[in-house]
Structures are given as structure tokens and as C-alpha cells.
């Protein structure tokens, strides 16, 4: 309850900050629509030359695009602005004030900045997912949709955890302000099913920077490609990575000694 209250007040503050730049919001949304148009056109070009991509149909790629945009929103609305603020606070020592607050510092550091207009992106992403699932028609069962939602959430948690670990590394290496670039760089790979990539790239985006865990794998669940055991494994990977990330964060906090001392 307490957390929700905090979250809503963070949101209010960020809405107020963004209201100062109303015209920018309109321009950003227009550009966002332009990229959506481009993404749909590129899928259209691909499927005017073939009927399947790595065994996946047009409808499934629409849904995948939706999931990709979900992760992209997480990146742009939360990870990017909060990391910037965090790196700054490590450099100038304002992290002191964050730690002094009587709230979980990991929560404070990761949710205090929200790029508000990206909510729009969230709506688009969910629309794409719903449209994609509808287009797949009868082949999708309710169970598949449930596992899809479960694994999409799990995948998001895995990305969130990786982010925590990456920024926590800054406690050890103060000058590490490229901390999330690698995540951002590989993000684009989530647009297409990882199954079409060469093995080495698939290994990178599944195990090292697990973009595919949040994009391809939920879609595989939707298609019914995964058995119960695999679903369970990915679910526990999600839970496990969150536990590891919070431990790394705690260990990192102990290393923190302020900027001036």
C-alpha cells in the first residue's frame, strides 16, 4: 500500500515536470507513430516475400512486435532516465540522501523518474499484442495466453534484474557510466524471433543479455512451443534473477562511501 502511494506520487511529480514541455510530447508521439508505421511496413515487406519467418507467421510477429515494444518502453520510460539520475548521484554524492530515506533504496533508485508520455507506447504495445493474438485465431488456447502473460512478466523481471546488477556495478567501478549501454545496444534484436539468428547471436541474446527471454520466449509460450517443464524453468529463472539482483544491490550499497569522503 505504502509502495503504491509512493509510486503514484512519483508519477504525479513526473507528470508535472513533463507538462512544462507539452509541444515536445506531441512531437515525440508523432515520431513514435512514424516508427510504428515503419515497423509495420518492414514486416509487410518481409511477408510479401515469404509466408513464414523461421516458422513464424505474420500474426505472431505482430504480437512479438508488441512484446518488443513493451520491453522498449521499460527501457525508455524507466531504465534510461533513472540510470542517468543514478550515475549523476554516484558522481556528486547525492546518493547519500536516497539511502537516508526510510524506503527500499532499490525501489527509490529505479522508479523515481518516469518518462510519462511513454504511457502512450504501453497502450500501443498492448494493442499490438491483442491484435496479434486475435489474428492467430483458433490455434491459441486460454492456457497458452496465460503462460504467455506469465512468461512476459518473468522476462520483464529478468531484464529489470539485469539492470539492477549493471547499475550496482557502479558501486565498485565509479567511472562505469556506460552501464546500461550494452542492454540498450542489444535491445533491437528483440524485434525478430531469436530462432532465426545464428547460434552465437542466439546464445548472446538468451543467456548473456537476455533480451530474448522477454520477447521470443513468451511468444513461444503463446504458440504452444514450450512444455510445462520449460515454462517452470523460465519462471524460476525470473524469480532467481530477482533474488540475486537484490543481493548484489545490497552488497553494492555496503561499498558505497559517498563522493566526498
Amino acid at each position, binding site marked *: 500500500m505504502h509502495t503504491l502511494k509512493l509510486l503514484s506520487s512519483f508519477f504525479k511529480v513526473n507528470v508535472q515536470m513533463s507538462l512544462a514541455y507539452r509541444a515536445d510530447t506531441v512531437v515525440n508521439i508523432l515520431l513514435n507513430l512514424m516508427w510504428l508505421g515503419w515497423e509495420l511496413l518492414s514486416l509487410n*515487406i518481409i511477408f510479401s516475400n515469404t509466408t513464414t519467418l523461421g516458422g513464424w507467421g505474420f500474426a505472431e510477429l505482430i504480437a512479438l512486435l508488441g512484446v518488443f515494444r513493451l520491453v522498449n518502453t521499460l527501457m525508455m520510460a524507466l531504465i534510461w532516465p533513472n540510470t542517468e539520475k543514478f550515475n549523476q548521484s554516484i558522481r556528486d554524492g547525492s546518493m547519500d540522501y536516497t539511502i537516508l530515506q526510510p524506503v527500499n533504496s532499490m525501489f527509490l533508485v529505479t522508479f523515481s523518474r518516469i518518462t510519462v508520455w511513454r504511457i502512450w507506447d504501453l497502450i500501443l504495445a498492448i494493442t499490438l499484442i491483442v491484435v496479434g493474438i486475435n489474428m492467430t485465431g483458433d490455434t491459441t488456447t486460454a492456457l497458452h495466453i496465460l503462460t504467455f502473460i506469465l512468461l512476459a512478466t518473468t522476462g520483464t523481471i529478468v531484464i529489470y534484474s539485469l539492470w539492477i546488477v549493471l547499475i550496482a556495478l557502479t558501486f565498485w567501478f565509479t567511472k562505469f557510466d556506460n552501464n546500461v549501454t550494452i542492454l540498450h545496444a542489444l535491445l533491437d534484436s528483440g524485434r525478430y524471433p531469436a530462432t532465426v539468428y545464428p547460434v552465437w547471436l542466439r546464445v548472446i541474446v538468451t543467456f548473456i543479455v537476455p533480451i530474448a527471454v522477454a520477447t521470443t520466449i513468451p511468444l513461444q509460450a503463446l504458440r504452444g512451443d514450450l512444455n510445462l517443464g520449460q515454462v517452470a524453468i523460465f519462471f524460476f529463472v525470473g524469480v532467481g534473477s530477482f533474488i540475486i539482483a537484490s543481493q548484489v544491490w545490497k552488497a553494492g550499497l555496503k561499498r558505497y562511501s559517498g563522493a566526498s569522503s
Partner: protein
Amino acid sequence: MYLIFQRLWQVNWAEQWQYRANMLMYLLYWLVSPIMYLAVWTSIANANGSVNGFTANDFITYYMTLLICDQVTSNIVIHIFGYKIQDGTLSGELVKPIHPMLTNALINNIAFKVLMILGFLPIWVILFFLFKPDFSSVALSGVLLSIPAMILGFFVSYMISAAITALAFWTTRVYSIHEFYFALILLFSGQFVPLPLMPKLVQDIAQYLPFQLFMYYPIQLILGKLSTEQIIQGFVSGVIWLGISTVLFNWVWKNGVKRYSAVGA
């Protein structure tokens, strides 16, 4: 003049060398899309035998060559110059007797490019062994001709971007305009897919735009896919676009500087 360029090179090279770690990250960021498209299209070609006459190897060689052409012809002038107009640091450069955009910024961009290419070469070799492309259609004449073609492409792209960057004299939203321009490149340059696979309408429009000079044209030139007539056509259109973009840039720049009243002045 030569001395000025030599000195500018030393300064800008030293500056770019400072950021070599960032550059590796940037390189990684830039590599992902072409490799992804390569994988997508080779997988389609393998599944269907060929796509519109393109075999899997055609796609591999296309994107492997695209990596090189994109490195040479692209520019970052919006990032090295845009902020100078906005925060007023341009004032110091304007009083110097040399053109800020055509000397200092240009040399800085080239220093960045050389460093990127140095970092990129070993990666290209690794990719070569991973994808094992068959480059047997490549002839020496095509490679030699592609060098002036890519240099021409770079200057056209530089002048257009410089003109867009100079719009910062009027608007703070120049980065949004640049993003829109970037989408045009993606659509018309052959960056996403070889142009013959684009919709007919896009191909027709691309004929009249400069963007294929950045990628599609030099790639096809290197791969030996163009007739003599097409090669000449490409160079002619390159020279014409260089003229147009230079005039455009000069016009925007001249009017912009007149409007410019530095922040804090």
C-alpha cells in the same frame, strides 16, 4: 590552409582518442541492426531457395558490404555540432577566420570515423569467418571505383546533415527533425533490405533521392552488380546532389548565422 587542417587533425584526433571505450559501445550498438537483418533475410532465402532472385549468399555479401559503406558514408555532425548552436559555444568558433562546420567539425567527424573503422576492422574479419560469405563477384575495378563513390556519398550525407543541424539556429527541436531524416535514410537507402525488394513505389521515389548514394549504390558497385551505364549514372547523380546539398547548406547556414544571437550575449 594545409597547416590549419594538420593542426585541427591533431586536436580532434586526440579528442576522439579520449573516448575510445565509449566508441566500442557505440560500435556494438551500430552493429546489431545490420546483423539482425542479415539473419532475417538469409533465413528467409534458405527457407524459400531464393527471394526475388536473391540467394542467401547474396544477402550475406550485401549486409557485409553495407557495414563498410555505412561506416564510410555516415556522419555524426548533429551530435558534434547541434549543441554548440544551442548552448552558445559556437560564438568562439565564429570569430575564427575558418568555417566552423566545414573545417573543425568536418575534421572531428573524420577523426571519429577513422577510429571507428580501426575498431571495426577486426570485428569485420570475425564476422567474415562466422558467416563465410562468397565474394567471388567482386572485381578490383569495382572496389577501386567504390572509393570515390563512397567519398562522394559521405560529402553529400555530410552536407545534408550539416544543413539539418544548422536548423538549430531556428528551433530547439532539431533532434526530432534529424530523427525523421534518419527514417528517410532507412526507407530509401537500402539499409533495411536491397532496394529491389522494397515496394515499387519506394524504389521509384528512391531513384530521385540522394539516399541510395550512401549505401545501395556503393554496395552494388563493390559487388559488381552494376552496368557501366548505371555506374556513370550514379556518379553523375552524386555530383548533382553534392551541388544541391552544398547550395542548400550554405543558404541555411548564412541565414542562420544572421539570426544567431548567442545564449548569454
